[in-house]
Each structure stands twice: as C-alpha cells, then as structure tokens.
C-alpha cells in the first residue's frame, strides 16, 4: 500500500464528502428553518441529474446542463413547497414522513414514465476529462478534483449567504423565532419557498455533478438521501457547519473503510475470510461511526442540546 494510493483514496473520500454536503446542507437548512423532515430531497437529486442528462444530450454543453439541473430542481422544489409542503409545517413528523414518501413515489414513477427504466449517461466534459498531475507526481482525475473544488466553493457561498446577506439574516432569525420575524414584516411564506428551492437546487446540482461519474437512473437519490441523514445526525440538525464536518467524516470513513478494513484484517486472518469480513464491516463503518456519535453526543457534534 503506497502513499500515492492513500492520498488518492483520501481525495476520493473528500469528493464523496463534499457531494454529500450539498445534499445534507439543503436538508438541514429546511429542517432548521421550517422544522420539516423531507424524505423527497433525494428526488431533487434525481431531477437535477435527469435534467442535466437531457439538456446535455440536446445541446452537448455541460455548463448548460448544470444550469438546467439547478433550475429544474429549484423549480420542482418551489412547486412542491407551494402545493404540498406548505400544508405540512404545522403537522407532526408522521404526516411529513408519509406525505414526502408519497412525493418520492410520484417523482420516481413520473421520471420512469418520461425517461423510461434504462439509465441515462452524462459524459464528463472535454475540458475536465483526463487525469491531472498533482504535486508529488500523483495522477488524479481532473473531474473529481473539480467536484471537490465546486463543493468547497458552495460551502463558502452558503457560509457567506447565511452570515453576510439579508436573506441569511432572515434565515437565521427564522430558525430562532418564526412568529417574531413574521411580525417584523418578513414575508415568511416567500422566505420558506426560497429556502426550500435553495435546498432543492443544491441537491439538483449534486445529482448532476455525480451523474457524470455514475449512471443517471430512477431511485439514485434515496441511498444518498439516507447517507445525508447519517451526516445530519452526526453533525447535528440545523447546523450547516455540522453538515460540512459530518459530510467529510462520512465520505472519508466510507471510502477509506472500504479500502483499508480488508487490508487490516489480512494482517491476522487468511486472505478470503479477511476480504469478506473486512468488506462487510466497511459497509457498516459509517453506521458504527453514527452510533459512536450518538452514544457520546445524542444531538450530534454541533447540534443544540435537547
């Protein structure tokens, strides 16, 4: 096991982590501001990926595809918020779970209806394809490096949005006391629609970006959604900073666990048994991480105490 391989895997883990962050940030914002658990967030991921694949096939432009993903997911988010989600804020979590589960069914089957059951493919654009040589002579796919950079840029953008802008002030105020900011003249339902659309757009962006390295298919969003839940549980609900740290932890644990756990077991076991046990354990690694965080801090690393 060489240093080059280890650095490569750390970069892969980072790339996975920042994409999870895009999902988790939207979820945690929506929960923090509106108190809503949204199972249909994975659908926006899928919508972004499909919109990107469709537009890329039509125009051949990756940049246009990304723009389409952002717009399609944000529009779907705003539409869903205004028709369905808005009625759920005052209800208990059980109703929210059922309604957003119903939305997954509608979105998934609707997408299958329009695009068919076969996966679509989104190509990595010419200017980002091929490997790049990093300092130290490590060849790494340029596209994955670009994903890491985009993810970090979005994190900075979100931080600036929430800390430095008027909208951010309203979002933070909404997390603390929604009646008060409504009384101060903020159009609360417009704010909610914007936050929801922003979260959906982030998920759509993640879907489009990841869609270029995996296949674009119905049901691609939910496994990522559940991982984003793990991220939020680890980071603490409502905390963007928690979502960022949690996403990187989960991304690195999952990627490095899959590579190194079988190797670790090979040190003291015979080869095939080590591979089996190691890879089974690796598939459980992030959940073990989550359990450990729960035992130490039930409200997550950066969550407010209950």
């Amino acid at each position, binding site marked *: 096991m060489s240093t080059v391989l280890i650095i490569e895997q750390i970069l892969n883990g980072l790339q996975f982590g920042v994409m999870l962050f895009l999902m988790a940030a939207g979820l945690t914002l929506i929960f923090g501001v509106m108190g809503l*658990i949204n199972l249909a967030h994975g659908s926006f991921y899928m919508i972004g990926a499909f919109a990107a694949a469709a537009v890329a096939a039509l125009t051949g432009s990756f940049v246009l595809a990304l723009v389409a993903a952002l717009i399609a997911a944000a529009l779907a988010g705003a539409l869903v918020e205004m028709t369905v989600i808005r009625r759920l804020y005052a209800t208990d*979590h059980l*109703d929210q779970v059922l309604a957003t589960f*119903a939305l997954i*069914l509608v979105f998934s089957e609707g997408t299958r209806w329009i695009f068919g059951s076969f996966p679509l493919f989104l190509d990595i654009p010419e200017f980002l394809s091929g490997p790049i040589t990093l300092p130290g002579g490590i060849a790494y796919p340029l596209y994955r490096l670009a994903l890491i950079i985009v993810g970090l840029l979005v994190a900075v953008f979100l931080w600036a949005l929430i800390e430095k802008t008027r909208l951010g002030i309203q979002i933070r105020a909404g997390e603390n006391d929604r009646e008060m900011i409504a009384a101060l003249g903020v159009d609360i339902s417009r704010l909610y629609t914007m936050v929801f659309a922003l979260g959906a757009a982030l998920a759509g962006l993640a879907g489009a970006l990841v869609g270029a390295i995996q296949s674009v298919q119905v049901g691609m969003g939910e496994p990522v959604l559940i991982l984003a839940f793990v991220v939020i549980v680890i980071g603490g609900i409502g905390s963007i900073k928690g979502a960022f740290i949690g996403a990187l932890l989960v991304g690195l644990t999952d990627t490095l666990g899959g590579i190194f756990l079988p190797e670790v077991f090979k040190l003291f076991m015979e080869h095939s048994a080590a591979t*089996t046990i190691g890879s089974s354990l690796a598939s459980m690694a992030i959940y073990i991480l989550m359990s450990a965080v*729960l*035992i130490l801090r039930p*409200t997550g690393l950066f969550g407010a105490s209950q």
Partner: protein
Amino acid sequence: MMSERYLNAGVLIALLIVPIWAHLADAPYTITLATRVAILALAAVGLNIALGLGGLVSLGHAVFFGIGGYAMGVLAHHAQTYTALDLGIFTVDGTKSMPIIWLVAVGTSAVAAVIIGALSLRTSGVYFIMITLAFGQMFYYFAISWSTYGGEDGLSIYLRNDFPGLNTLIPIQFFAICFAVLSLVLLLQAGVSRSAFGLALNAARQAPTRVEAVGLNPKRLQFVAFILSATITGLAGALFADLNRFVSPSMFSWQFSGEIMVFVILGGVGRLCGPVVGAAVFVLLEHVLGGLTEFWHIYLGLILLIIVQFARGGIVGLLATDRGQHG
C-alpha cells in the same frame, strides 16, 4: 359509521371468507393474495405497537422483517443442503420446522431491537426517524455483502417449511396458519393495550413529563414497546419468506420500511385493525392499479397525499364512530 369493535370483526371475517370462497372456487391466486395481506398486516401490526401505542416513528422496521426472513432462509438453506450452521462456538443443523424458525426469527429480531432501540431511543423526534432509517440501510448493505447466503441474489428455498399436522404446500392451509398467527397477535395487542403497561405506554406517548412525575420511565416503556413491535414484524418476515420461498436483501430495503408505515397510516394509526385494513387496501390497489398501468405508484402517491391532507385518521378513522387512541 359503526363502532370500531364491529368494524374489526367485519374486517377479520372478510379476510377469512375471501380465501375460503377462493378455495371452493378453485382460485389459488386469490388465496395467495389474501395470505400476502395477512402477512403484511402482521408486519404492520408490529409497527403499529411502536408507532400507534408508543409514538415511535420508526422508519427502519424492514430491519426486523428482513431478519425474520433471513432466519427462515438461513435455517432452511442449511436444512436443504444438509450442511451444519457454524455459530463459532458450536454448530447446529438447519431446520424445516416452522415453529422453530419462528422462535429464532422472534429471538434474533428481539436482539436487534435491543441494540437499535437502545441507540435510537437516546434521541427523539426527527433524529429517531433518521437513525432508524439509517440502521435499516446498514442491514440492507450488510445483506448485500453477505455472500455466504446469496448476497445480492438472495436465497431460494425449494419447499415450503413444515408445520406439524398441516400440509403447508396447500395454499388454504398456509393461509390458515398466517391468519391464526395474525389473530393471536391482534388478541395479544388488545390485551397489552388494556394492561397496566399499555396504559402507561399510552400516557408516555401523550404526556411523557407527567408519566415521569408519577415515577415511571417513559423511555423504558417505549423501549419495551419497540422490542415487542420488532419481534412481531420479525415473525411476519419469516412467514413472508415462506410465502415466497425466497429471501433477498430487498426485505431490508427502506422502501419496505416506508410501505409498512403506509399500511399503518392508511388504515389508521393506533387502531387495532388499522394495519389489516391498510395492508388489504394496499394489496388491492397494487393488484387493480398494477393491472391497469405499470406506473401505479404515482396513483398510490396521490392517494397518500389526499389521505394526509383530508383523512388524518385513516380508513378506520373515517368509518368508525369512536375516537381513535391516536386522535
């Protein structure tokens, strides 16, 4: 509109009469559908104890369904291949006997519920939903990577397992077993919800601080309810595996956790026969709409959205005159 007691009796009688009619009319597929309803209802009855009585929104009950399924799959696999099951310290033979399989399914589900419950109940609300969902996914991926028992492809069992005195290969006899189990569990649930424990659990859901004030521990009550709930769903998993003579990681899938919850809510949360009604309506919709269009899940989704907006008490809540426990 009628009293919930008569409604419950009517639901169970209907579930009994349809397959008997189908047996006389020689329509085995209808019997299989009714068996499916009984088993899915049993899984949802399990969840209803955690959700309706305990107020625990568990989105990971497929874990126990899958564990029950794999208990059957693993034991029957070893029995049909005549190999011993190596448990590390000692080995045991597989078995084709349903009662033994059920015991193992219930026992292993209980062990899993103790671990998952102890961790998940450290939190509440949305955290609980997300964590149970995450544990479900963990078991799903574990089952996929567990190559000894088929991995992603699952395990096929050639012959249905045996029950003393009955021929389980005859559809109506296997239905009778499932229906009897469902009825017994419903009786058990009715007894539990009237018992001191059931009343305390009800109170723990509605006013945990008051329960604490009278010296009870609401989390512990919910913990016990969670374990009880898991064992019933686990038992349903073993029966479901026997119905299909097949187990696969999809029994652990998050979609199935969602579907069990849909059965409960569709029928009526906290209602004794709510899960039975919910499962029956779901299987009927699947059968009728599924025959009309490949995309029947869209319509299911729209129906669910309507239920959330307009019919909070589910179908039993609409039909019964008495207020539900969850109301």
